[in-house]
């Protein structure tokens, strides 16, 4: 039980916001930055923040992720470990403008 609580505490601490998490910001239905470099071979947490007044959905087929980002909110997307390469993503609700690519190096 104690070990469990300890593990829980650690995992909760680990999941609280972290300054060095890579971040994407949605503004005017575009991602900033549109090209985001991340380290290959490690797990990381991508924070996606939506500064638009309407919802967006972060989606990537290559990364196998889709997640709604409500207006004014920031949500975590857990990724990796990724092989070196490029992983395109898009905003499902504004596919003509919201496009980007994650580059794992």
């Amino acid at each position, binding site marked *: 039980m104690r070990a469990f609580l300890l593990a829980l505490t650690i995992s909760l601490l680990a999941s609280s916001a972290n300054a060095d998490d890579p971040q994407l910001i949605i503004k005017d239905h575009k991602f900033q930055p549109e090209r985001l470099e991340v380290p290959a071979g490690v797990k990381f947490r991508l924070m996606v923040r939506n500064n638009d007044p309407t919802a967006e*959905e972060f989606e990537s087929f290559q990364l196998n992720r889709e997640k709604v980002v409500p207006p004014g909110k920031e949500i975590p997307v857990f990724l990796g470990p990724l092989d070196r390469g490029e992983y395109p993503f898009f905003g499902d609700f504004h596919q003509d403008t919201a496009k980007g690519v994650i580059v794992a190096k």
Partner: protein
Amino acid sequence: MLASLLIVFREMLEAGLVVGIVMAATEGLAGRTLAILGGIGGGVSGAALVAGFADVIAEAAEGVGQELFTAGILLAAVAMLTFHTTWMSRHGRKLASEIKDFGRAAVKGDKSLFALAAVVGLAVMREGSEVVLFLYGIAASSHESVGAMFAGGLIGLVLAAAVSYALYRGLLAIPMRHLFSVTNGMIALLAAGMAGQAAAVLAGADVIPSWGERLWNTSFILPDGSWLGRALHALIGYSAAPSGVQVAAYLAALALIVALARLAPDEKPKPKTASPLAETKVAAQG
């Protein structure tokens, strides 16, 4: 208009395929149209509710509330579908022969009908909530007129319903005595796909281990984003680059459903009644 048409069609196609299979699987059951319509209605209300609470759900559980919620919906649907296949493997043959003898829409299968109506509701709710968020976003930013948006959405919905109906009619071309075996098989694959997807979503949120981020990658043959990829994803759980735990959950669910269906004792079809007298005897027994 085209944007809302495409997104509504895309999201509703998946729910529509589920509805098509469920319609074929409930062929001949009394009250099934009402039950399925009830499922769709409940799903639409649920979708509006989920969209309304999108920010609450998104921020719950340290930001993985959405994944937990989606996985919960998927697993509930898997449970309902498992119940249906087990029930059908026990009653299916009898049901098929009764439908042949007494005509369609005359046979009772209340429990199974309820389970499938719930599956329809869950599918519509899951896919529909995204449509609501999207359409609300367009209406709020109003780059295009609300009228054009709704027209596009309506066309998308009609197209998805048409695919759903085509699948249903196609399945009905199967002779009655084989129909429920086919729909049972399709429902087993549907359930396995949903179980795999639930596992993928949970692994994506780092709630469970992924057992390998991608076991293989067939996106150069059939990408997830293509129309065929999407349809197969909805029907049999196709995923171009599945994680280990996704494949494991898929196989485990499939094995469980097949095992339960095999274990369920088969109810033999009633012998054809030769005379009115024999028929009253059967009725009196029942």
